[in-house]
């Protein structure tokens, strides 16, 4: 098992945001996490990256307990996150953003990966010298994904990559996610766009106010009456 979360809890002050979450992600799998606003999806990803205090439970990555590991250690182990709202380094060039994605790596492989990212996202190559902040929302999302891939991750965490994008761009982003999945990248995808996420995912979890309430195969959840009613607007 690549990722094992067991009874995870997290608080903001006295507000409990996560209440005993248990879930797993296998190598090569694509797992989706859906849930309404404020369900705790972002909080869970922040806990996985080590930028949010854990108040109970355990996180294991490839057999190693990382519950209290520093964020940089987790990146070295192979956890990369594309955060909510993209969070590119706006005043810095596209190329610098990509290079910083590989901050914990050195050597020729970095340059090769940079070339690979430019192949994958030609628009980033065209704009490599420009400040990342001048890119459109969709392009910034591509950059955020490419930047995370630059760390050569074993697990890619995606937090609402389609948020705030026009429908055409949403489609494009999901194409990218699909092609990453087909290349064998292990993906944990958080989405409010439940339909698209469930259609792509091998397995999925539904989060409600800090707890997992439904889980199963992606296709099975698409057909689930409760999910249909609450998240698919059917």
């Amino acid at each position, binding site marked *: 098992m690549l990722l094992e979360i067991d009874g995870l809890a997290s608080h903001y002050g006295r507000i409990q945001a996560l209440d005993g979450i248990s879930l797993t992600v296998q190598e090569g799998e694509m797992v989706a996490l859906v849930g309404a606003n404020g369900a705790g999806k972002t909080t869970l990803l922040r806990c996985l990256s080590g930028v949010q205090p854990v108040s109970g439970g355990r996180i294991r990555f490839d057999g190693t307990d990382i519950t209290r590991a520093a964020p940089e250690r987790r*990146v070295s182990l192979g956890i990369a996150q594309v955060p909510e709202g993209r969070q*590119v380094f706006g005043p*810095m060039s596209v190329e610098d953003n990509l290079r*910083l994605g590989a901050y914990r790596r050195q050597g020729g492989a970095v340059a090769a990966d940079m070339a690979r990212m430019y192949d994958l996202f030609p628009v980033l190559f065209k704009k490599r010298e420009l400040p990342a902040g001048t890119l459109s929302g969709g392009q910034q999302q591509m950059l955020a994904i490419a930047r995370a891939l630059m760390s050569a991750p074993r697990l890619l965490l995606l937090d609402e990559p389609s948020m705030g994008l026009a429908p055409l761009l949403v489609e494009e982003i999901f194409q990218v996610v699909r092609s990453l999945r087909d290349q064998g990248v292990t993906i944990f995808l958080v989405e409010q766009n439940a339909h698209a996420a469930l259609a792509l995912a091998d397995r999925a979890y539904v989060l409600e106010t800090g707890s997992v309430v439904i889980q199963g195969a992606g296709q099975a959840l698409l057909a689930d009456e409760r999910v249909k009613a609450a998240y698919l607007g059917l």
Partner: protein
Amino acid sequence: MAELLQYLFAGLTSGAIYALAGLGFAIIYNASHVINFAQGEFIMIGGMATATLTAAGVPLPAAALAAMALTMLVGVALEKFAIEPARDADVVTIIIITIGASIFLRGAAQLVWDKEFHALAPFSGEDPIRVLGATLMPQSLWVVGVAMAVIAGLWWFFNRTLFGKAMLATSFNRLAAQLMGIGVKKVLMVSFALSAALGAIGGIVVTPIAFTNYEAGIMLGLKGFSAAVLGGLGNGMGAVVGGLIVGVAEALGAGYVSSAYKDAIAFVIILFVLFFMPNGLFGKKGVDRV
């Protein structure tokens, strides 16, 4: 004309020192959003240590390096023992801690040294150079030259090295920097070491002109702060331009109005900027006010 040139020489010399101090404020501000009011004490320690060591017979280059190392050690200790334990406190609390630290460092300097003024010989003699009727002291050239070299070195560090870029990235987006695996604790530590080194260098080159004592950091620190505020807090180029403007304004004010107002000019600039242009000359909009 010769008079104006004379004032400009004086202004650019002190302006170069303020620019270095302003850069020190900017670097720490960028890493932590803290305004480090002990920046002036870094200048003082650099000057005092060099003056004492050379007086004891240590050659100037070795004394200067040792003084820089000592000041960087003080900077790192300040971060480790005063700032880091309070990192969950709000920024205003941490700024007050730095004011406390500056008072502590002045007290410590008084114990280690004394209350006397200490001098340092000019690096390459005292024969003035005549330029269009004005006189230029060789030490002024040292001050400006060293400041330019340091600024070029900083530019290279922040634009051409991966760690320098990581420090910049941390200032733009701390969360994203953490997610890239940038150790933000290390960034904070290095920012204090770097700012301390900048302060020490400024203190070393200015002491042959200005003398130094345990309190010498107060004014230099405040003027560096006004340089940083004028340029826009956290903007490196702004701190340099701000430093030069404060230095020249001060020299012109002292020359044409009255030297009694020399120190007041930096304060007038701070107040003017805070009231009328809180983002400074080059600062970005929406900086947190403290």
